[in-house]
């Protein structure tokens, strides 16, 4: 019987597999950042051991960094200390750092792909759940805790049980105004925030295949929001075209050899999945979330579920969620006033996202009482946007183009949405307090967020494109 793409990669990375023990899996690339690494380095110090393979770990500062005046010292003392500690830890242990001010600095899941570090067939981990992003290249990539970060630093391996495999097929073509973010929000709304827990997902089907690499990253990025260990997409010409010529990608004879291997990375026709789900792209409309987990999403023209449509057991959590959001069961979101628009995060802060927004807003102005933050995913994205004049378009629209970092996705820096305010956000989580204490989040695509920025309310972008 044939193998799934996941199993091909996993099997080629198992160092030791013993009955009753989790597999010791070799890790090709390990990304670290300032928030989940200090305690891991501390652990190494306590054990008196070095980083085992320094060249296989790369560091950047993203979660905590300010998105204005990055050339100045970080004002907030605790954030500053964490970022400084990343600098001293990486220097002490010999790990490459793309810190603040470095031309490669940015959100860890944006810089890995754009630098050609992320490659098909790799195993990739990072102390961040959105590591699943890198799966878009046909890699096994997943988020880990700090104890596991220490494991990988110490041994370049991680102990893991092999997850089950799920295939999610999205067939057909997307309708106008519907983009990759809508696909993943739609899938999560159908299978819930825990619908893929215990599984590694492979995305397939015409609608996935026809996406660009950056759009594929958006899909894989949010795999964790349905509980999946990770999500991947078989590499193809789109993938190879994207990687070729990037800074750390293989070159010359190495490229040819790697390409030969990458072309073997697909799921065999007779391979088995534990679960197969199929969706039709034509059923998907622009999506928006109304609740406090990413599974609580609806098409923008639909109504929030009514209480009688729910199981008795689901009601308390549902009510708590709507109370937090200040919304009524059964009501519609269309036309709801928004206060903030956040376009950024490892889900949607790449150059294509910024281009999509710029194309839409060109010649338009933001609504008067809306604050719009655009936070590019990396220094390179920022530079490219300026090169293309996208910064001018944003400026004319009244948008605030900031500097790279995780920013208002999780509000670890100053970029917090004030209590009670509504933010339409291209990020990945609408949890209570995620964007700031008592902030209220609507997750949506960059296009839907841009539409809301112009109208000042939740808008069906299809009416404007």
């Amino acid at each position, binding site marked *: 019987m044939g193998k799934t793409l996941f199993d091909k990669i996993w099997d080629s990375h198992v*160092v*030791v597999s013993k009955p009753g*023990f*989790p597999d*010791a899996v*070799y890790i*090709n*690339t390990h990304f670290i950042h300032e*928030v*989940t690494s*200090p*305690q891991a380095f501390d652990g190494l110090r306590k*054990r008196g*051991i070095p980083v085992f393979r320094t060249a296989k770990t790369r560091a950047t500062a993203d*979660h*905590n960094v300010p998105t204005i005046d990055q050339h100045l010292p970080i004002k907030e003392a*605790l*954030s500053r*200390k*964490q970022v400084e500690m990343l600098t001293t830890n990486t220097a002490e242990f010999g790990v490459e750092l793309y810190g603040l001010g470095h031309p490669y600095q940015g959100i860890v899941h944006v810089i890995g792909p754009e630098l050609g570090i992320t490659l098909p067939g790799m195993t990739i981990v990072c102390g*961040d*759940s959105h*590591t699943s992003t890198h799966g878009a290249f046909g890699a096994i990539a997943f988020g*880990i*805790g*700090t*104890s*596991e970060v*220490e*494991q990988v630093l110490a*041994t*370049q*391996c991680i*102990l893991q*049980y092999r997850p089950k495999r799920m295939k999610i097929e999205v067939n057909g073509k997307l309708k106008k105004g519907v983009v990759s973010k809508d696909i993943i929000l739609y899938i999560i709304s159908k299978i819930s*925030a*825990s619908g893929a*827990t*215990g599984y590694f997902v492979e995305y397939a089907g015409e609608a996935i295949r026809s996406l660009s690499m950056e759009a594929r990253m958006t899909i894989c990025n949010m795999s*964790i929001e349905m*509980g999946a260990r990770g999500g991947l997409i078989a590499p193809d010409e789109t993938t190879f075209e994207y990687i070729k010529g990037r800074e750390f990608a*293989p070159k010359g004879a190495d490229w040819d050899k*790697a390409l030969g*291997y990458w072309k073997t990375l697909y799921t065999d026709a007779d391979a088995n999945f534990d679960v197969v789900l199929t969706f039709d792209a034509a059923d998907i409309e622009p999506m928006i979330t109304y609740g406090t*987990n990413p*599974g609580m999403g609806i098409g923008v023209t639909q109504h929030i579920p009514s209480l009688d449509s729910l199981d008795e*057991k689901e009601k*308390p*959590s549902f009510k*708590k969620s709507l109370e937090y959001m200040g919304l009524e069961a059964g009501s519609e979101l269309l036309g709801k006033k928004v206060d903030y628009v956040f376009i950024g995060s490892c889900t949607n802060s790449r150059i294509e996202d910024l281009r999509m927004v710029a194309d839409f807003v060109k010649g338009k102005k933001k609504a008067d009482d809306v604050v719009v933050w655009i936070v590019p995913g990396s220094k390179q994205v920022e530079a490219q946007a300026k090169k293309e004049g996208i910064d001018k378009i944003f400026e004319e629209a009244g948008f605030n183009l900031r500097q790279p970092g995780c920013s208002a996705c*999780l*509000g*670890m820096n100053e970029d917090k949405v004030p*209590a009670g305010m509504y933010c339409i956000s291209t990020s990945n*989580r609408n*949890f209570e*307090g*995620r964007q700031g*204490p*008592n902030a209220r989040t609507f997750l949506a695509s960059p296009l839907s967020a841009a539409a809301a920025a112009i109208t000042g309310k939740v808008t069906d972008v299809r009416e404007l494109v």
Partner: protein
Amino acid sequence: MSKNFQHLVSTAVPIAIENIDTDQIIPARFLKATTRDGFGENLFRDWRFESNNEPKKDFVLNNPIYKGEILVAGKNFGCGSSREHAAWAIGDYGFKVVISSFFADIFKNNALNNFILPIQVTDEFLDKIFSAIEKDPAAKLEVDLEKQSLKITATGEEAKFDINPYKKACLINGYDDIDYLLSLRKEIETYEAGREFNF
């Protein structure tokens, strides 16, 4: 956090909410510490305290009738961010066991790596636990890791739970994954030497 676990008899703290994410367990703004200590004081911060730091009276951790070393929560506990700080906060607060009818994967690993035992029970058994505590907040639960059993003392009702044998041995004996992986050094080097690509 004590580094091994075998047996525990304790009252429990109930939070009958589903999909409790790690941002609720420990909000991002409290992730700035560079050690593993002290996260317990911000456990469930925004459910537990008003913005002026006054305790919220209706939250269970502020109700003195509920205490103990066991946390009982609704299904899909620990979803969201991979932050191990969530497990540190739970451990630092004094919980040794978390019971739910479903756990997010990364949280489960993080808990086990910190010698906190996540016990997954059926929805029905979880309901029984919640109603036992509702009836009597002093109701005790008994956890026996060796036998993989969880008992509601008052009713004698018992559920078996799964845990993989490796992690069970780690918890009982107090060793961690790094001890095991470091012992595989030779195998790791042999694997590296046999790899076709240097990535």
